[in-house]
């Protein structure tokens, strides 16, 4: 049918549009534009939340909440930052809120780990990890980081954002980003020491 192919054509046309154009269309009543934005970023948002939150069951619900929040706020989007850093900001805040809400406390604080010399973790990390163990290792290491540092590392190393973009997401100075990354790496280096030594 002609109208059906027209719809597909519209879909194709929207798919090719930049975020800015899609947002403008959305702000002018084109709801389909939001669908394209969701399709474009849902994977990244989910992975970001998963990297921070480490709970696969909760990722989907939280991601949905992120996009609902974005949907509600997009009409007021003023193009002062890029859409994806704005969206990441919502996602990071959502993950943080959820962490606080659930009152998740790190059982092992880094200081406690270092001071007590956690031999169990140390011996676990000393084993050359196989593929799924690598994933466990990354998850465990990230989980040991304080939330502020963890978010910075995830945005930099896993999501590949620049310092400026991270500063935009976290609404802080670039100097703060540098400092958080440096401190996160220092902690990670201590935590992953057995693994790193094994590799040398």
């Amino acid at each position: 049918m002609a109208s059906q192919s027209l719809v597909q054509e519209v879909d194709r046309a929207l798919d090719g549009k930049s975020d800015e154009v899609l947002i403008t269309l959305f702000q002018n009543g084109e709801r389909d534009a939001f669908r394209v934005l969701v399709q474009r970023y849902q994977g990244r948002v989910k992975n970001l939340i998963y990297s921070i939150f480490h709970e696969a069951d909760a990722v989907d619900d939280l991601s949905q909440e992120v996009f609902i929040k974005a949907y509600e706020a997009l009409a007021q989007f003023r193009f002062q930052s890029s859409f994806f850093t704005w969206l990441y900001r919502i996602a990071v805040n959502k993950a943080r809120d959820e962490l606080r809400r659930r009152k998740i406390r790190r059982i092992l604080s880094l200081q406690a780990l270092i001071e007590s010399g956690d031999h169990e973790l140390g011996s676990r990390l000393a084993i050359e990890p196989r593929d799924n163990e690598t994933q466990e290792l990354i998850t465990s290491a990230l989980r040991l980081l304080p939330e502020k540092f963890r978010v910075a590392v995830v945005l930099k190393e896993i999501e590949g954002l620049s310092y400026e973009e991270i500063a935009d997401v976290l609404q802080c100075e670039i100097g703060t980003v540098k400092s958080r990354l440096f401190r996160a790496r220092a902690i990670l280096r201590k935590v992953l020491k057995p693994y790193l030594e094994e590799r040398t």
Partner: protein
Amino acid sequence: MKPRTRQELSELLSLYVDGELGEQQARELEEYIASDPEATKELRDLRAMKRLLTTKKRLPEALGFWTRLSSQLDRKVREEENLLPFPRKYLPIVVSTGALALVVVALLIIQQRSSVMEYVNRQSERVQKAVEDNVLKGSILPLFSNVDRNQVLQFALFGTLPLDSKTESSLRVDETAERGYTIDVGKKPAGEAPPVTVDEFVQEVKPTRAQRQVIDSVLDLGRQRIERSAFFAEDRAIAIDPNLPQFNRVMLSSIAACLESVQRLRLQKFLEVRKARYTIGQLRGRPEPPERIYRGIPQTRRNERFIVVTPDTLAFSHLEIDVDSLQRHLRRMAEYRPHVGVNVDGFIRRFAEREVAMKKQFYFDMDPIRVLGDTDVLTIQIGAAWEGLQPAPREWIVKPAARGPRAVSHPPRVPSFNFRFGGSDSSFYFNLDLDSLLIRMQKEGPEAGFEFFKGDPRFRDRGLRVRIGKDFIEMDSLVKVGGRAHAIVDSLMKMMQEKNRGVRERQNRKKNDDLPER
């Protein structure tokens, strides 16, 4: 460049691995690193950590993410928006304004035949335009909106959906008939199943958190499908997706598909206690992945074929309804809901009045559909020949608990005309029963009917044929019979009488044959 402290060195190395140092600074740091084994080791560690973190696995893409999100957004918007786009006092005018697209498809067939000829010939574009115009004007409304998960679960278990909270009317589907399916719209029968809630279901079947999420998504997808499956235009027309009677089994199977064996057993008990129409056919089996379950729930296509019933006629046509825009429109007129049952009841009464006068009955050759009604309930019977919805294998996880009577068990009482216009790819069917036509001819004179048969050369060229019972008559041959309207009516009447006489004689012969010999 020599860092003053170890911390400064670490900070510089952190920037260096990220490529954030200037060219000069980077070169100086590299020179220093070469002279300091500790710095070399730290750099190696940082690079190894970087590599390690980049191997972090990504979560797979989840199917149905947008579907679930969109349904949540819909619900949210619905909760928030409760404003009419126009002054409230104009609501009745807005609702009743405009020609109804469904009526355009069907009512005009009776009332303005000559224009219908033109109309039909232009086919779907005009149908579609009329639908769109009227959708925008708010004349066509979905029979169901604001359906909640409890109601979807109720539909999955019993095939019933309340039309609104104000009247005792509901839509009921039944696929347990021996041959074919039925859709009843109207007054609730006595002893209708008591309401079921998702909470009760969860308490008794005990799904895990992840399963609960899948079940919620299935119910949301079901809600979307239901809201796109039935429409009405005030008290003048109803359009229903003929696949609806099978959809509740699809829903229940999809829910069962995510359950473990022990939970399926609990579900079976849940169904038995509530005397649901279905029972579990496959108690053993591994839960299916959510993506597969979501994919197995067919959504209404943009261009779906609907059964369109008006008090005067029945049509079976593709209707392309932009449900999203319709739903957006509806969110702004939340108070239309209380009128649904009233309008549908009004429609059924009008239908019943005509039914008595015209002995209304319809029958399609390829897709046997019949509409019957009394003053309380309108019944659409869909014969077993209907194969619109291809069931996926897992649908058989549940099966009907018992078989009902045959839905379409005998041929129509009176012969009817069946018309088909257009080519195979763009055909448009409509159907008029002969009684209805003849009554009109008798009331308004044969000329009124003749207009209908006069024969547009465009139809003759396409070989339009009128079917009376099993006989086909070329339109142009009808026109040639005497060339006058009354002659055509006479010949039609004669044919009908002969046909009926033949049927009666055959029936009498059969009766006599069946009598036991003395």
